[in-house]
């Protein structure tokens, strides 16, 4: 982190917490009697309270989407490229709310939290959540913040699924929807990747059926493997090739099984970092929420019918080299929205970075995303708040 904050940064931010005592009935049949959500806000909520934008995070995301927690931070929040003064989500106009989803491991109630009934950590007993449950809890956070209707709900990947759910579950509470690098449902291949990740975790001897905390262990090897396979699917063959090629760490082959290629070293490093910072039960829960999401299934497989309640304009964005949530998956959504007569625009951004592209700076992505948000601000007659 440099000595001064970049001028287009939201600056130093502090996470806040909101506690909820009203029980939350979950799609799986269970109920959470009370829970805490941790969130950050950027920008200023205007007097009309109509300039709020909700950010929905992806599998391993959290509430820290933009800015810095301290001057010592090496990196800003995970979506800093698109949230800030003058950026696509312009915090001079919009008030941004970014939360850690229920079941997460960054401060919101999740498997590592204490189960009020047993006074032990929830562990694997924490209820499996769905995208609908998350959106329900997000709506309660909106109530708490006095936001009747979001100017936009925005998300990439798993976050995009939450945006879709918002348009169907609370159509009157969302003025615009931005669905990036997402899909209306996972393909068999996607579920397969998730299952490999889950098996990696569950077969780690340190996992103890999810009760690792009580055993004083961390299923690091499993988490590491899960992250490694995940990471491969988030990059494209091209971007991996460009980044690592067949480069070796030393100048010769060693005819052994230690790290030899740079790509091995990179993946192991990614896996190691992740395995000490992410909770295994949360990872399992998040992948399940991904797998379960399928709004069309409730309407005989007809996605257009499922989307019928939606009222707001949509922006759908995909990336050409994303093979995890490939452009045809976004097209599926766009075609259904067109069949359902919804207002929708779609752009397929030419990027070499695979699924990760949705997090990275890109001029055309910025133009499309920013253009949609500027139009949204104009339609809502939002003035600058700073």
């Amino acid at each position, binding site marked *: 982190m440099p000595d001064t904050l970049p001028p287009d940064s939201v600056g130093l931010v502090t996470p806040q917490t909101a506690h909820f005592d009203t029980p939350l009935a979950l799609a799986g049949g269970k109920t959470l009697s009370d829970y805490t959500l941790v969130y950050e806000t950027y920008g200023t909520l205007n007097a009309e309270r109509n300039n709020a934008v909700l950010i929905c995070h992806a599998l391993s995301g959290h509430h820290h989407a933009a800015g810095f927690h301290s001057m010592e931070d090496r990196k800003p929040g995970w979506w800093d490229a698109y949230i800030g003064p003058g950026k696509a989500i312009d915090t001079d106009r919009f008030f941004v709310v970014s939360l850690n989803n229920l079941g997460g491991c960054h401060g919101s109630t999740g498997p590592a939290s204490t189960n009020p009934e047993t006074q032990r950590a929830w562990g694997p007993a924490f209820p499996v959540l769905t995208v609908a449950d998350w959106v329900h809890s997000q709506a309660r956070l909106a109530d708490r913040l006095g936001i009747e209707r979001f100017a936009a709900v925005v998300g990439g990947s798993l976050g995009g699924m939450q945006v879709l759910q918002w348009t169907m579950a609370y159509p009157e509470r969302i003025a615009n929807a931005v669905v990036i690098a997402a899909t209306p449902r996972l393909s068999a291949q996607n579920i397969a990747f998730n299952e490999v990740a889950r098996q990696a975790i569950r077969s780690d001897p340190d996992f103890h059926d999810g009760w690792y905390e009580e055993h004083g262990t961390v299923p690091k090897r499993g988490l590491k493997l899960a992250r490694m396979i995940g990471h491969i699917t988030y990059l494209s063959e091209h971007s991996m090739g460009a980044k690592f090629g067949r480069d070796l760490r030393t100048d010769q082959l060693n005819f052994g099984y230690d790290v030899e290629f740079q790509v091995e070293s990179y993946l192991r490093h990614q896996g190691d970092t992740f395995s000490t910072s992410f909770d295994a039960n949360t990872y399992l829960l998040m992948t399940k929420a991904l797998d379960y999401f399928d709004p069309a299934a409730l309407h005989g497989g007809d996605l257009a019918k499922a989307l019928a309640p939606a009222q707001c304009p949509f922006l759908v964005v995909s990336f050409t080299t994303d093979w995890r949530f490939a452009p045809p998956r976004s097209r599926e959504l766009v075609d259904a929205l*067109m069949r359902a007569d919804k207002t929708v*625009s779609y752009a397929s951004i030419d990027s070499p970075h695979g699924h990760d592209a949705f997090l990275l700076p890109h001029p*055309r992505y910025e133009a499309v995303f920013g253009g*949609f948000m500027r139009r949204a601000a104009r339609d809502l007659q939002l003035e600058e708040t700073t």
Partner: protein
Amino acid sequence: MRADLKLIHDWVPQGARVLDLGCGDGKLLAALARDKQVVGYGLEIDPDGITACIERGVSVIEQDIDDGLSNVEDDAYDLVIMTQALQALQRPDRTLDEMLRVGRECIIAFPNFAYWRHRLYLGIQGRMPVSKSLPHAWYDTPNIHLSTFRDFGQLCRDKGLTIVDQRVGNGDHEPHWSSRLWPNLCGETAIFRITRASR
């Protein structure tokens, strides 16, 4: 507004469901939404056009018309419009079939290659025409299927399509009386309004 777009604007019925193939910056769709409560989508592949549409609040889908319209159901639209894109298509005849599959009626505008200025270029100078409606050199033009007002009428008749109306436009000006008399010679832009073959 460009003369051909103004004419099309007048032809579009109130509240129609419209698909605009190659919608550019979305000006026509925006005007139709404003003046005629038209709902619909534009298809475009030009990044700047797509961004302009999005900023304008026009629904635009990044889709290459040459890939077909298989994602669109039969009779999904009242009207399918295509301006200044026909001549750049791989197979204009097949796209025409697709347009009339997804919409009951089509409006198509394209540069008339038989316009007298184009003829002068080719006939007198012996060079490929370059004009306001055909601004590219022969080697970098996206216009690979140039045709004339008369050619397109013939294609419609060959396909047994019904020509509801056919006009020519001249740049930004009101059409001159001469282009009514000799449209194939005096019209810079050809504009056709067609429907499916009557059984």
